[in-house]
């Protein structure tokens, strides 16, 4: 058994080199200035109005996206977990297969769909319906986020629901609960771990994306991810970028902490 433990060696080495040390580097860069002295200025930069606004908007959009994903995903997961048709292939069809079409392209395609003279508006015009004009607005970004991250909400919830003991549902019905009561009192509470893990897997990437806002926001919407990306890639200010990343990390950890308080055990998971 001792020797078996050694098998974790490569993994340990790997995670120390490429997970732990890099994180410490961020902390180090974030807390030093360009000339190497200790400073809190990089962190303090988050309080400038434009950065605060970007952070606030990121939180808001991520929250919206998470709520919409949850509302869309739950019924979907329910249907999939109950249907007798081979659900696994449907899931693959809906969620895994599109991944083979590059994520940037898929997001970019929404531009073509949403533009003023885009596909959707042309169809709407044919039907004599009013045009929708959301491209280059936060709405388009939320749509893009929902599109990109929906699978990460559906899969964990689905996984919990398929494993749900059907007799537990039967028992509730047996004890007099109608289908609504059964859902609210049994199915929903039982699927909390899946919901939590879905929220985590949607909220974090939505909160930190810069690609989607870049592609669908028309450069008018600046999220905290954009700020960090620009600081690194264009401003080339690693100290400031690291400082802002640190703040972002703290925010994400804090949000997850709040969410996880409702998760008693770690039974949920996407895989």
């Amino acid at each position, binding site marked *: 058994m001792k020797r078996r433990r050694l098998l974790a060696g490569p993994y340990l080495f790997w995670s120390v080199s490429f997970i732990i040390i890099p994180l410490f580097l961020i902390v180090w860069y974030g807390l030093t200035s360009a000339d190497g002295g200790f400073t809190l200025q990089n962190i303090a930069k988050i309080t400038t109005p434009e950065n605060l606004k970007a952070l606030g908007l990121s939180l808001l959009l991520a929250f919206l996206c998470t709520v919409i994903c949850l509302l869309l995903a739950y019924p979907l997961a329910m249907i999939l977990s109950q249907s007798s048709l081979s659900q696994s292939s449907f899931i693959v069809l809906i969620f895994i297969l599109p991944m083979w079409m590059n994520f940037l392209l898929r997001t970019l395609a929404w531009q073509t769909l949403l533009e003023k003279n885009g596909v959707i508006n042309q169809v709407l015009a044919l039907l004599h319906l009013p045009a929708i004009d959301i491209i280059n607005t936060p709405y388009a970004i939320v749509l893009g986020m929902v599109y990109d991250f929906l699978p990460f909400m559906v899969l964990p919830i689905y996984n919990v629901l398929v494993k749900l*003991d059907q*007799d*537990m549902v*039967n*028992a*509730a*019905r*047996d*004890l*007099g*609960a*109608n289908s609504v*009561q059964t859902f609210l*009192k*049994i199915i929903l*509470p*039982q699927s*909390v771990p899946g919901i939590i893990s879905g929220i985590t897997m949607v909220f974090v990437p939505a909160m930190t994306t810069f690609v989607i806002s870049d592609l669908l926001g028309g450069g008018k919407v600046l999220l905290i991810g954009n700020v960090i990306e620009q600081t690194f890639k264009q401003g080339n200010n690693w100290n400031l970028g690291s400082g802002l990343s640190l703040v972002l990390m703290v925010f994400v950890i804090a949000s997850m902490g709040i969410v996880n308080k409702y998760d*008693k055990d770690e039974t949920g998971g996407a895989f």
Partner: protein
Amino acid sequence: MSNKLIDLSNISKAYGGHTVLDELNLYIRENEFLTLLGPSGCGKTTTLRIIGGFETPDSGQVIFDGQDITHLPPNKRQLNTVFQKYALFSHMSVAENIAFGLKIKNKSRQYIDDKIKYALKLVNLEGYENRSPESLSGGQQQRIAIARAIVNEPKVLLLDEPLGALDLKLRQDMQYELIRMKKELGITFVYVTHDQEEALTMSDTIVVMNQGYIQQIGTPEKIYNEPENAFVADFIGDSNILPGIMVEDRLVNILGATFQCVDEGFGKNTPVDVVIRPEDVDLVKPEDGTIRGVVTHLIFKGVHYEMEVTANNYEWLVHSYEMFPVGTEVGIRVVPFDIQIMNKPISEDEEAVNLEA
């Protein structure tokens, strides 16, 4: 033991072309402890689920207290179920589990608290209100599942192999507990099991099922002593099932030897199956037996010895308080009353049953 409480008539059910129940007819009397007994896949659980409302039969009717409840959803039925794997709500405490049904019915707080206390006392788990179901042992979870069902004062309690997951000792204890509870509650129990001993111990009536058909309905004694066919005989306890020919009334030829028996009305020279329980086989001196044989196996079983005796090319299973060492020549004798004569299976289904078993 008076009027019919539940009446199942002509129930059929198939899953994907595979017939599970075929034209099943069965009634359950009030206050009865009725057990559905059979091997897995015999349709007993499906029958229970149809009574509980978790399955709808393809055809046939379920009458409860004179009312057709065939298509009534489970929450509208006056019966409750104890599930095989308990199905306790893991996100609720023991008390919340028990209170679930009562809260749905909007009972008062006081009433609910009293009921929880009463139920926990009934199942011998006082003081467990705030425990989480997952912290309990299998036996305790089982009791909570029962408590959760009975607080709703159902007219019928359905139990789906409730003791299946428990170990032997606990299972035996729970059997007595269940009988006690049944007496205290004075309601009808419909019990599903594949364990014949459990069925014999607890039931008023046993329904032996196989492959979607009822094989025999009767009291435990009748089922044990007078199995109607080879399947029942084989399924209930160990038996010697021998081919025989009914020479005439009260006389049967088994393996070439003629035995006295008490059965009549099979006609003359009719092929039959003969059941002789191992404890009814008397081993005597070779010259005193109806046929002779040699002991080939011997095991000490505590209360008795189990032996195999080869006689007339048949391995007889014998239970006896007396020991005969391997190799001993013995005579076999059976009291006429202990010889049970059964008709040879006529239908193909029964034939199939025989082969399967």
